[in-house]
């Protein structure tokens, strides 16, 4: 499978740099996207803002946590969606929801940190269980944990409220802003996304990230250099779980409910699809994948109906898209983009070389 051997572009430890250097180092494309995201509320209606872009950013964060493990650590974990769902459940259970007999009505500033810490502990523990295995066995163990959590939510009524889960989970109101409204919620998701993206990019270049990439390339040699490979992998799970847990908090505020369906096998696999379609080689990949996924999911119904087909077959479109991308580009959409850019650069260089040769002749 294409995810077996992801080889991200390696980030070299760099000396610290000034702001202007930082601005120049990121290409113009990067700054266009930043500006676009910042002014998005002026351009898009609330539907696009929240249902498409913010939702894609939340799913992207969960997929980013998988990209960090998979791309830098060579670990394919299916437990990331479960970590997010666990955090979502905890926000509903500890905080406020319509299920008043269970929810403990803690204020959000207590419920959210506790939810993130517990979900991170859960993700780290899952990692500790699966980390001594490789490849397909990691997938199997994490899948088993994910299904166990799903059935626990489905069948436990005292804590998880069984099939119906929790509804009426409202985003908080603080600093005089109702963070459930479209524009504040969009900016909240944007800030969380930007922070988690930056954290992954930064960490990949730090000694910890570099060592993680070493354990991916050659775990035995890493041990022979004095590294504790197992401890590094568990630490990577912990780091990824923090991101997934924050995404879970956003997810429950976005959906305003959480139920076993949030943690089901479908969503668990969807996260893997998002990460692979986007590309496991770069932190931007999961967000590209999530955007494509959300857009396809939202509009394929209309598209299929317009084409005279049954609109309920939207999964078919997503499946076909997934297949096409994995077949043609093992490193996802980001990989296609990189190859196009590389080809463009090469043809430009070739042209420049031709010009030089041409110019050299009398």
């Amino acid at each position: 499978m294409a995810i077996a051997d992801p080889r991200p572009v390696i980030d070299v430890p760099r000396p610290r740099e000034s702001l202007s250097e930082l601005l120049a180092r990121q290409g113009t494309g990067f700054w266009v996207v930043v500006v676009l995201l910042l002014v998005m509320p002026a351009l898009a209606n609330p539907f696009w803002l929240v249902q498409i872009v913010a939702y894609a950013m939340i799913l992207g964060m969960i997929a980013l946590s998988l990209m960090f493990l998979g791309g830098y650590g060579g670990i394919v974990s299916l437990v990331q969606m479960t970590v997010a769902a666990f955090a979502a459940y905890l926000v509903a259970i500890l905080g406020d929801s319509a299920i008043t007999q269970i929810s403990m009505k803690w204020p959000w500033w207590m419920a959210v940190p506790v939810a993130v810490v517990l979900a991170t502990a859960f993700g780290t523990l899952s990692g500790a269980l699966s980390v001594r295995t490789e490849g397909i066995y990691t997938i199997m163990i994490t899948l088993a944990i994910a299904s166990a959590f799903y059935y626990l939510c489905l069948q436990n009524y005292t804590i998880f409220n069984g099939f119906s889960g929790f509804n009426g989970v409202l985003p908080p109101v603080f600093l005089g802003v109702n963070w459930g409204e479209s524009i504040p919620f969009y900016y909240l998701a944007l800030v969380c996304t930007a922070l988690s993206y930056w954290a992954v990019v930064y960490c990949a270049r730090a000694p910890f990230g570099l060592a993680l990439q070493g354990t991916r390339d050659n775990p035995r040699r890493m041990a022979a250099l004095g590294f504790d490979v197992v401890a590094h992998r568990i630490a990577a799970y912990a780091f990824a779980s923090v991101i997934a847990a924050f995404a879970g908090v956003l997810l429950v505020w976005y959906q305003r409910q959480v139920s076993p369906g949030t943690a089901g096998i479908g969503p668990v696999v969807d996260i893997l699809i998002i990460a692979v379609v986007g590309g496991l080689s770069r932190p931007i990949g999961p967000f590209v994948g999530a955007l494509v996924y959300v857009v396809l999911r939202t509009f394929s119904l209309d598209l299929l109906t317009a084409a005279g087909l049954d609109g309920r077959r939207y999964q078919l479109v997503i499946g076909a898209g997934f297949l096409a991308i994995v077949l043609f580009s093992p490193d996802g959409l980001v990989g296609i983009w990189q190859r196009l850019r590389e080809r463009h650069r090469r043809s430009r260089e070739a042209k420049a070389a031709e010009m030089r040769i041409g110019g050299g002749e009398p």
Partner: protein
Amino acid sequence: MSALPTRDGLAAAGSANALELRGVSRLFGALAALSDITLSVRPGERRAVLGSNGAGKTTLFNCITGDFAPSSGVIRFFGEDVTAFPPQERIRRGLRRTYQISSLFTGLSVIDNVYLACRGVSRNRFSLRRPRRDDTLSHAAQSLVDAVHLTAVKDRLVGELAYGQQRQLEIALALSGAPRFILFDEPAAGLSPTERRDLVHILTSLPAHIGYIIIEHDMDVALRVVESVTMMHNGRIFKEGPPAEIESDPEVQELYLGGAHG
């Protein structure tokens, strides 16, 4: 800090052998890859382990570094019983090794490979702080790259290097930190005559306190860089002595030298 030798380890190091194996055996199913190996190497001593293919030389290295646990026996490193230690704990105590088949991080640059090796035996292996260019470890990495003549290619990806350069990088990784004892597994394999001369130069100019064991089929390299030789055959130690004696031993000639050329 577990990375440093314990006080007992240090106290014992004054008198103890750098490496001491007592009755070490390793079984793979019914096959005894090593049987009852007893071996002592003094601090700073340089020794060759010779023997035909399948004699158990690399298995011996794997037991010493902890890649495999021995089936029985005791391994002491500078007086400290390291038999049950995982590889990283032995490495942090000053043991190093190179691999017969280059075992590098092909997706990383040369300098990053060496930097990782320096980082592995230092503190803050989990550090999230990015190194500055004037950082001590970056400095150490840079001088190791210089020491093995790879300065010109330090930013290239290791996967793109020529074979001989990869072998040199193997040695640089083994020299990182403060090595006290190194295991070289066929460092000359596949090298050109010039590269072999460079290798001999690198080995003979190592600081005197660093001892090593070298597995090497090329007698010209092996016998020029060591003061003692251990011959292995079918997982057992067959003969020990200074290079000249081993070279002229008729049994050795028949078993190993004769066999290799016949």
